[in-house]
């Protein structure tokens, strides 16, 4: 274990960081907020349109249309990633492109493209989850915790 004292900054370091801080532009801007809102909303709008298409022209029920809709959104994201467009949109949009399912698809596809050159098994196979892996691991853990809470607090589920 690294001792806590070692992690502490010396007075000179603290003084410098205070000086440097003044010159660093803030990561948080309202521009980022409305851009994320706009693109995130736009992606959801496209998703909604696709879902409605499945309902009206495909004869699916709203619930059944969910899976093929996600499929189409993933496909769009992967195509945009392959053409090198998704990362450019993401620089503008921030969380707007990262949060929806398209962001997850981009994480998988970009890793697949990047590590394909390092070999099919060790490259593609070994590294495809490099970016998306943590989401899956901690998503599973969170789902497990929520599942347990559900069993404890909802007696109807037992024996149901």
């Amino acid at each position, binding site marked *: 274990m*690294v001792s806590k004292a070692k992690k502490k900054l010396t007075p000179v370091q603290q003084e410098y960081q205070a000086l440097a801080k003044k010159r*660093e532009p803030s990561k948080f801007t309202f521009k980022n907020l409305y851009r994320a809102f706009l693109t995130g909303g736009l992606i959801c709008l496209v998703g909604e349109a696709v879902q409605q298409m499945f309902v009206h022209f495909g004869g699916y029920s709203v619930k059944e249309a969910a899976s093929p809709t996600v499929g189409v959104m993933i496909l769009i994201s992967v195509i945009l990633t392959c053409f090198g467009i998704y990362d450019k*949109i993401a620089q503008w949009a921030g969380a707007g492109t990262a949060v929806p399912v398209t962001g997850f698809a981009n994480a998988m596809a*970009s890793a697949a493209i990047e590590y394909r050159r390092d070999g099919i098994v060790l490259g593609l196979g070994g590294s495809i989850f490099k970016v998306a892996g943590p989401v899956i691991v901690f998503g599973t853990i969170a789902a497990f915790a929520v599942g347990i809470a559900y069993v404890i607090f909802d007696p109807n589920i037992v024996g149901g």
Partner: protein
Amino acid sequence: MLKGHQSWLFENKPSILSAATSVGPFEGRGPLAEDFDIVHGELYLGQDSWEKAERAFLEEAAKMAIQHAGLTEGQIQFHFGGDLMNQIISSSFAARTLTIPYLGLFGACSTSMESLALAAYIVNSGGAKHTLAATCSHNSSVEKQFRYPTEYGSQKPPTAQFTVTGAGAAVIGQEGKGPFVTSATIGRVVDMGIKDPFNMGAAMAPAAVDTMEAHFRDLQIEPGYYDLIVTGDLSKVGYEIACDLLKKHNVPMHQTTYSDCGMMIYDYETQNVQSGASGCACSAVVTYGHLLNRMRRGELNRILVVATGALLSPLSFQQNETIPCIAHAVSIEREK
């Protein structure tokens, strides 16, 4: 010859016989495009991976520099080089092609001046007639190694820098018409406790200032001795911090023009590069291309290039370590 505490004075005035630069398409759209020998239209150079492409840039620049000097590989005694890839594969693999006896260096982005300082030192001391100093970096290979897959959509903060794709090489010889490498200052590692790899400018600025002050102290000169002083790749954020620090330390920088290579190579208006440029190739292509051209045109007589490097690795960052930084200064003069 050792001068002061950490500087070398090259009394035999080793000469930069030739220099060559090769860059990618994005650099070709920047304001310095005219100063580069070759601007490529694509990032792969016909290779099938970023790492191989980076090596191809280096081989091309090195071969071109040797050619411009009117020499062959066999007439160069030593090759000094390094890059940002793990185990400096770009340089070492290029050295395999060049077949010049090779010393691999790693000083992150400061390798450009580290290699030039050593190449000049060896020539100055009579250890070689001709030496080669060459460095390279590739935006995509660096993104892949240090950050995320190149196509991954993550938003870069305003302090982030864009790694230059390209390579710069220079041939140093005992006799030549100049410009001459007149002195060099080797920097110490400075760590001010910055941890954010997207804020390298702030991490490196103290190292640059430390080396500059050491240079002025060792050589007993003032900044006014130089027409231009440039730091390697502090970019906008780091440059402003360095200016603040120099002011705080009462270094009379108003005597000269102080700029940063990371702020010169891209157009902030049209190219979305956040704080500016970085990478081994940043200071290399700006110095060997743009600045040497300006010296040849007589616009500059004496320059000091302070190449800065952040000595982090993807592992050290994951293990929550701070970023140690270094800077090496080399002075280039038009006349002996």
